[in-house]
């Protein structure tokens, strides 16, 4: 018996009280990171407590949107049906200027351009009517 969950729609994030600030920020074209209300350390992905000082309170700070490409992969089959038409596509990890890392995609680049260490900057892409994803393109100028 074969069970298929294949769908042409990409799975979407469902925000909760701990991470809504991040996803709402993306909707408003801002990359927001959690900043601990007590020790000021900045973290990503969002979580309900500061791993450094255990303070549960945090505020959302707008990040610069700049960083460097830390690592990447070029994806071929197999992958979800929703991404099949984009093969081969990249997934990258960006080391943000503020310290945290983020999983994302590189956009608006030439195939021979992708390289670890390249400066990048955030752009935003809407997925359907409710979700916006933070993506990165080669930085226009050196940060």
């Amino acid at each position, binding site marked *: *018996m*074969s*069970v*298929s*969950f*294949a*769908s042409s*729609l*990409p*799975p*979407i*994030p*469902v925000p*909760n009280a701990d*991470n809504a600030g991040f996803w709402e920020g993306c909707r408003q074209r801002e990359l927001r990171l959690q900043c601990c209300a007590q020790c000021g350390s900045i973290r*990503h*992905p969002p979580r309900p407590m500061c791993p450094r000082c255990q303070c549960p309170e945090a505020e959302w700070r707008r990040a610069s949107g700049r960083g460097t490409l*830390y*690592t*990447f*992969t*070029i*994806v*071929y*089959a*197999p*992958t*979800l049906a929703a*991404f099949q038409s*984009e093969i*081969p*596509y990249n*997934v990258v*990890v960006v*080391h943000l200027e503020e310290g*945290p*890392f*983020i*999983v*994302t*995609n590189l956009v608006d680049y030439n195939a021979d351009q992708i390289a*670890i260490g390249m400066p990048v900057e955030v752009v935003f892409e809407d*997925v359907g009517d409710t*979700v916006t*994803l933070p*993506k990165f393109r080669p930085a226009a100028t050196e940060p």
Partner: protein
Amino acid sequence: MTSIGDRAAIIGIGQTAFSKQSGKTEHRVACEAIAAAIADAGLRPQDIDGIVRYDIESNTELAVIYSLGIPHLRFFAGVTSGGGAVCGTIVLAAMAVTTGQATNVVCFRARNRGKRSASGPGKFAGGRPWEKTPPQLTDAYQYHIPFGLVTPAQEMALIYRRHMHEYGTTTEHFGMVAVAQRAHAVRNPNAVMRRPLTLADHENSRWIAEPLRLLDCCLETDGACAVVVTAAERARDAPHPPAYVLAGAQAEGPIHIQLADYFQHCREETGGRAVARQLYAMAGVTPADIDAAMFYDHFSPAVLLSLEDYGFCERGGSGPFVAAGNIAWPSGVLPVNTHGGSLSEAFIHGYNHLLEGVRQIRGTSACQVPDAELVLVTSSNTDPTGAIILRR
């Protein structure tokens, strides 16, 4: 201080045939492997009073005991994670039998993951878990999957690419792992893949997620493996030479399903390194004392990282270590995955590595290391992880 060190032993091993499609349920392959392990230990089902499984295992303790006729359990537990759980099951079983919470504990993994072996809609009911990604993401995958980062191969590719960048590791080094393990599998009648492999075959195999090619990836197979753990003082009565658990340890963090957080942590510490420190301290041995290693190998470069984590070479030195022939049986200084591993024998979530570790101690491997006294077995080194050292 009380320790599990050298106080428990694996006295029974059992498995099913490994195949691309068994035509059997995960329930049945579990029962077959467990029954075989109990018989191998010279015991009967009613002698078993403990079960440890992976927490994602589809077979509950109840499903096992009512089929096998095990009347009563005193101890039962599940270990977090998939490939990170392998050796943690033995650590828990050793804790149970050395503290009197149980007498004879069965640990097992049943896994039907051949392409046509899905048994239901549940995420872990056969097939590939990622194919059953829900349309709405409520967990940490919401920071991966919307960007097309879906499969374990894609996740691990990001980690291995960074290793290449930092240390000059090459995809040819990946290929050397695949080729060495295939050469072992050629001698192993249990192995699913027994056709010899060359570096050119590896180089010509298609990309899955750069820098990983098809031949860097583990098989997807059907089958099950089980072991019986008992206290050391009872082990000498078993029909086969016991594989004593000289040491066992677990560690959690950093975990690759939160890659952003993984890279924040891995620059200081890996789970494998944390396990290695505990393990060698408990065992009172060094890497130079280990005769063979069964490293978790969902992808060939996982072996490279484990060689570094467990101190067989320095950080970044695993490529040259493998290129020097060190992991190939019979000539290498540290024969690795002498059954062929997940790349060439079968992918039973690392549990077949435990069985091969016991065979090396018993002297019954198809690629037997002469007089093997100490064998290292590890769990996946980027999940929650763990490892054990078996001694003769």
